[in-house]
């Protein structure tokens, strides 16, 4: 075996495999520390839960060259200003409902999940909710009875009734309002938001 050059030898590649793996793992860990900090709710890119007390716009940033969420003035959800704790509890209840009902096995959220139904990341801002004065009510109504309130836009595909309680439906709306304020680096591109008071 002495005729095997060093670069083809077993021991050289064993060492390389170990060093490469260790090195990449360390870089990943370092980046993870930074990312976890940045995506903590209330840091720069992921909003604090009280954002559900505010109006959320989705506007073009000419420097970044894509749209980004812009937090506006007070616009309390269901007419009630919430404390940071109350807001977190409500968003969390919505998230828990989304998991327990497995919404992500038909929909995508942040683009991940299933492809049977529309992406929900910006559902709060979807133009199909007509306008901001009726949006909250329409969303709750839809979630409570998606069969009767089906739209489909010409398709017969409907969302089934998942038997949410009214409280769960409202919490889901809070959760979706919060997700619409996450800075997703321009995803989905070219999205047309619903018309809102204070639009430019």
């Amino acid at each position, binding site marked *: 075996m002495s005729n095997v050059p060093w670069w083809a030898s077993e021991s050289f590649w064993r060492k390389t495999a170990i060093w490469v793996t260790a090195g990449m793992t360390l870089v990943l860990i370092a980046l993870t520390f930074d990312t976890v900090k940045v995506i903590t709710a209330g840091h720069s890119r992921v909003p604090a839960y009280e954002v559900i007390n505010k109006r959320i716009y989705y506007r073009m940033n000419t420097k970044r060259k894509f749209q980004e969420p812009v937090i506006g003035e007070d616009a309390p959800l269901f007419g009630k200003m919430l404390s940071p704790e109350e807001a977190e509890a409500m968003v969390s209840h919505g998230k828990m409902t989304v998991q*327990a009902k497995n919404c992500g096995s038909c929909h995508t959220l942040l683009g991940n999940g299933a492809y049977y139904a529309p992406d929900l990341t910006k559902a709060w801002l979807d133009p199909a909710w007509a306008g901001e004065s009726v949006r909250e009510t329409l969303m709750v109504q839809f979630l409570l009875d998606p069969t009767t309130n089906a739209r489909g836009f010409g398709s017969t595909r409907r969302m089934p009734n998942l038997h949410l309680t009214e409280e769960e439906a409202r919490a889901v709306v809070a959760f979706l309002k919060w997700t619409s304020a996450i800075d997703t680096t321009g995803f989905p591109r070219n999205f047309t938001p619903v018309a809102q008071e204070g639009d430019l």
Partner: protein
Amino acid sequence: MSTAKITGIAALDGGQRLAVKYFAVAIVLFGAQILFGLLAGFQYLSPDFLYGVVDFSVNRMVHINAMIVWMLFGFIGSIYWLIEDESGTEVVGLWLGNLAFWLFTIAVVIVVVVYLVIQTGPGQIESIWFINEGREYIEAPRWADVGIVVCLLIFFYNVAATFMKGRWSGIAGVLVLDLVAVAGMYLTGMFYSPNLSMDQFWWWWVIHLWVEATWEVLVGCIMAWGLIKTLGARRQIVTTWLYIEVALMLGSGILGLGHHYFWIGTPEYWLTVGGFFSALEPVPLVAMVVHAVYDSGVHRFKSPNHPALAWLIAHAFGNFFGAGVWGFMHTLPQVNIYTHGTQWSASHGHFAFFGAYATMNIAVFYIAAQRWRGNVNFGGGLVDNGWKWKWALGLLNGGVVGMTMALLVSGYDQVFIERALEGATWSGFFKAQQNVWYLQGMWWRQIFGYMTLAGFFLLVWDLMTIGVRETRPAVFPTEVAEHAA
């Protein structure tokens, strides 16, 4: 020459007896995966089918969960299959292994029954603990997560302790370290967070670091052993290749994780890191194709187990095309911003999981079947010319490649219409879903799905019958090669 061939359980060592149990459950779950995939696919074409009874979400969940579990069962079985041979000693805690097998299997049955009967729960933590977790691929409720971790730990103990007692090898070393990572990654998916970005950040540690890092290394180990067994490839060369593959795979795949961190609220440096490293991920997959083809060529495709060798080659190509090529096509952020979360992803997902992991498991099933039948010849000149395995190979691969192409057409249409033109709104989504070419893709996916099902039935039939009437003993190349070397 031996007179009577020893078949069935009597032909197996202890680890192998446990392995065939895992294989049996894996095959049943593979069937369940296809069945529920077809139900979900049919609901795209006829949305009222089982609406409100067994909804798309339920069928899809069973479809992909059955997949994850059957592949895990297949891998665990494969390792138990080779471990006594590789370590030169008996499995240390076989009874523990058996216990874990039954625990795991019973847990799977309970989980599936709850999925189908109870389906969903109220928006409370109890639902996540006992019904489903609502996160793709790892929907299994938390109690089952705990069970899975316990079973994986038992498995890890058995593997590590057995090699410790017997002899180590390069393959053994890689395998043991890799299993630590497989179990470790799973833990990162076991907590609740109200923060969706945080949730998905860690969720990808399980999904991506499993399929694009730890599982790749795991099948690399099985492949290495398989090439030695089916072709008689030289151990030293195979081990060196394994190290090269590990270096390239983990060198690109670990930071390649970043291709899932483009749009989920994570910082923008991931566009560069994820784009760059994931674009390198196909490199080791090319190397594996070269390796498999080269080895097969050097040994002139002489193998006493043609179906196993054919599936190993299918693995090399499927891994390269499904993961490498299909993955590369949408991995750059400039492309992914449009394709992210469309049928495009489904096209890649099907091709990659089948091409990389279903194939490898099926290859091991054939290696196992040969021993079970008393080490008879599975090479050329099988009694009925081996039509069953050949057709099963063709129908399964043809079916999945057909589904992949159909989904690709639908995916492109969806990307153009919903994403590029309509900006991904609710109405834009449905505009794409009703596009005539999109719909044709959905029909073809279903038709190729039936083809896949036919291949599955044939595969099961073949595994149950291949070599039963064969009497010529297999001539194993290992002995030839090692003695000649």
